[in-house]
């Protein structure tokens, strides 16, 4: 009952309403993208882009001489910078000279270091570094809510339009290409959507924690379902439950919502993992029983 009362307080204040809306939109986007991030093994790339986005945010603040909250132009600069980092990763890892994970590691630390340096030079923003790292959801403005709503619509359109192509691509890239799937286009589109998600999620959970929202819901989905619709539904349910629950718990306990959301989604991941382990053990035991019955 108390929880529902706390949920009710979100609709009394505009800033709380925006915060809940932003958290739900972010969880919707991450819930849709996460299964493909996990199945295409892009977890480290997503983490790298999240860290690299700090460089873009800092560059935007540095060039526009704006305050700690990025403007629309600042978000544009951040998006271009993050896309530039993604392109650099693709360039370095093409042609068997360097493994993709090494290229991601090399590029994201450089971009992250640039971000710290630029924010330290701009003294008035440097004091808000923890806002970038862990989010400041109560400071979400209407522009950011609209941008998140736009990105959620675009992500939903992408997932529905290329649903079966995405499924084929996650199984085997060469097989998908042989079937006529435009795998290069899918890869670039997914990377661009991940880049936009990590940038716009900075305020909600911060760049250090957004990776969890891009990986854990998908991991929960793949542990729970054996077909793509069920994997997506489990991923969406996990992301949205933890976003709503995290907002309520943080409001009740007066703690930052970003870490609470991430810890909640991690708890769901642990539950999914152990349920799956139990199911696998039961299947294994049943299989052994059948073998014993067949072999006297």
């Amino acid at each position: 009952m108390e929880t529902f009362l706390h949920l009710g307080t979100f609709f009394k204040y505009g800033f709380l309403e925006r915060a809940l809306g932003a958290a739900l939109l972010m969880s919707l986007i991450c819930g849709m993208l996460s299964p493909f991030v996990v199945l295409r093994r892009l977890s480290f790339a997503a983490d790298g882009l999240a860290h690299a986005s700090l460089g873009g945010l800092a560059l935007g603040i540095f060039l526009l001489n704006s305050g700690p909250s990025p403007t629309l132009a600042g978000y544009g600069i951040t998006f271009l910078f993050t896309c530039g980092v993604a392109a650099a990763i693709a360039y370095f890892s093409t042609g068997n000279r360097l493994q993709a994970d090494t290229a991601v590691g090399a590029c994201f630390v450089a971009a992250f270091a640039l971000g710290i340096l630029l924010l330290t030079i701009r003294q008035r923003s440097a004091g808000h570094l923890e806002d970038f790292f862990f989010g400041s959801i109560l400071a979400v403005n209407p522009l950011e809510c609209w941008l998140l709503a736009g990105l959620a619509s675009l992500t939903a359109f992408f997932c529905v339009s290329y649903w079966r192509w995405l499924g084929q691509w996650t199984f085997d890239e060469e097989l998908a290409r042989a079937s006529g799937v435009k795998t290069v286009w899918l890869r670039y589109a997914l990377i661009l959507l991940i880049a936009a998600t990590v940038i716009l999620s900075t305020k909600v959970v911060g760049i250090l924690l957004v990776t969890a929202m891009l990986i854990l819901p998908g991991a929960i989905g793949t542990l729970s379902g054996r077909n793509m619709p069920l994997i997506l539904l489990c991923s969406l349910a996990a992301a949205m439950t933890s976003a709503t629950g995290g907002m309520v718990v943080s409001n009740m306990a007066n703690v930052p919502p970003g870490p609470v959301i991430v810890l909640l989604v991690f708890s769901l991941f642990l539950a999914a993992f152990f349920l799956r382990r139990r199911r696998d053990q039961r299947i294994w035991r049943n299989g052994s029983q059948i073998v014993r019955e067949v072999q006297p």
Partner: protein
Amino acid sequence: MHTKDCHVLTVDRLTLDLSGRRILRDIDLVVEPGEFLGLIGPNGGGKTSLLRVLLGILAPTAGDFHWSEPACGRPRIGYVPQRTGVDRDYPLSSREIVKQGAPGSWPLFGFHAREANRKADELLNRVGLSNQGGAMFVNLSGGQQRRLLLARALMNNPNVLLLDEPTAGVDSEGQEQFCEILRELSRQGITVILVSHDIPLITAHADRIACLCVGLHWHGPARALDQSAVNGAYRCELERYQIFGGRTRSQLQENL
């Protein structure tokens, strides 16, 4: 439907270079509808690369190839890749993996979803996996995984099947089962192009054999394949890597 006077595939002086190395040289090949063609040759001989060119994944450096003649319509192609490239931990069930082979990009709903399920079950039954529809890919044996990939390739109602070493690492009984399925598909009018290292198996089932080692060393009816043709194709591998086991080239040729 193809008629007998249409070639399914015509390869014309096809050459492929990758990273400065010649992979395929002046390949000429014609494949007829419903034919079962076996592609043999040493490792690095260009068998997989030829399949990748035919699938449009690699572009030829010179020469050309075309599927069918315009009047016959472009064939639908099914492909079974080498198992090494496939994600063994993929979490979807066998039925879902087979359904992925259906063409199109939008989700399937209602009648189309039911039809895809029915067809996937029918294909699983056809390849002898009728009781494995709910099993996960990782829990299938090597031979079952290959048959599952074949069922997936058949989901698109292909006219042509390209298979890249589908029987590698599979026991002899599994290999026989697999080739029997291919033989049956070929009898039903599906053109089969099978890459394999197992020469006795492929000569027992294929109509024609092509020995590939950068160039096309020999091709003809399977029953006409003799030891010298095989030696000729496999000798070029030794020459390419200069592995003569301490013997001179002339000694090696004498032994062959």
